[in-house]
């Protein structure tokens, strides 16, 4: 299985080399972090063939971020306990983290207006056209042809965790069961790796994940789609919502 990564650039001049470099970056991360590839560092780590100390600095950085996220989220983000087989799966942070890295490449090349969508985790830099921020939809879990909400994004990361994405993808680490009451959780903020982790954590908490985000997260806002088909958001999230 894979994730599609789409980069849309809206600058008047395109640095093709920089864009190509971002895809090299994604390929490199995929090779090292994929839990789907038997020879990736993460797979070898999960099988006990590799010690953390022997992994690349990037893998160590991601694992450190996973651990920090686990602590801050009171164990609701736990890269070791979201899967039924208990295998290491840092995917909840890697996708966002890889996009953050891609942004650094594009930023360094002078790109000012672009949008990267890595399998539903989005970072929107600048505007879609001068003075008009990017509009990012949040999928309606019951109908992929529609969106449940739209946020206005200018230098904003948007990450969504949900049951519909890959079956029951996220299990509550404490119980080993799927979260209750929510079908998707979206977190927005400045950094996509963080937003990714907080979306997974808040989703695992269920509906109260929105309250947790409002209380505990600085600079990040959350919006949930509940099992009874409503949208619940933090107050701050509403500032980003628009009616297209």
């Amino acid at each position: 299985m894979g994730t599609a990564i789409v980069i849309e650039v809206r600058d008047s001049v395109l640095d093709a080399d920089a864009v190509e470099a971002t895809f090299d970056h994604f390929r490199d991360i995929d090779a090292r972090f994929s839990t789907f590839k038997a020879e990736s560092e993460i797979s070898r780590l999960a099988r006990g063939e590799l010690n953390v100390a022997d992994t690349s600095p990037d893998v160590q950085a991601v694992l450190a971020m996973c651990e920090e996220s686990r602590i801050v989220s009171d164990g609701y983000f736990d890269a070791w306990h979201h899967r039924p087989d208990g295998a290491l799966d840092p995917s909840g942070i890697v996708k966002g983290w890889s996009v953050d890295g891609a942004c650094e490449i594009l930023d360094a090349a002078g790109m000012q207006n672009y949008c990267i969508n890595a399998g539903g985790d989005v970072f929107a830099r600048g505007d879609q056209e001068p003075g008009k921020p990017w509009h990012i939809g949040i999928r309606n879990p019951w109908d992929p042809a529609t969106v449940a909400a739209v946020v206005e994004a200018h230098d904003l990361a948007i990450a969504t965790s949900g049951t519909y994405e890959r079956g029951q993808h996220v299990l509550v680490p404490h119980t080993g069961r799927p979260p209750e009451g929510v079908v998707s959780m979206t977190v927005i903020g400045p950094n996509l790796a963080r937003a990714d982790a907080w979306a997974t954590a808040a989703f695992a908490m269920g509906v109260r994940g929105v309250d947790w985000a409002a209380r505990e997260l600085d600079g990040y806002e959350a919006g949930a789609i509940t099992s009874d088909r409503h949208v619940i958001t933090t107050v701050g999230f509403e500032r980003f919502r628009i009616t297209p």
Partner: protein
Amino acid sequence: MPKRGAVALVTTVLAVILLFGFKTADAPAITPGRATPGIGGAPGRSSPSPIAAGATPPPSQDLTGGTTADPTRPPATQAQAGASGTFTGDTIQTPYGAVQIAIVMKAGKIVDVQALQMPFDRRLSQQISQQAEPILRSQVLRAQSANINGVSGASYTSEGYYESLKSALAQVP
């Protein structure tokens, strides 16, 4: 500053595809006995029906009023001005079966994406076919909407789908 900048139109779109092989193969999506979200079904929970008008009272906000991407809107980006017709992508062999995609262009924008072949021969393949194909289809169509640039919410993609889609796009004159 660009090192080797190619002059582009004001709107430049790169829709390049890459497989990002994160774990799903033995994810609980295929665990027997667990509710599997199919299109139109309620994921995770036992809610029986898809959202239908009037099905849910709206104490706060009902998703029935969700925004539907309208493929008839003017495209935010124009692939090739004026191209019309159906363009059939290559048949891609995947571990799960053959995948073949066709796109329907009208006046330079994608108005439909059709899956001519999707694998159905194994249980995992059914997961891909039932979930991924319609989701991907809606993503492609939605990208044509002037009002929405992207969608957050994890997607489930198959290599063959994008490979075939790319080859279909490559045929657009």
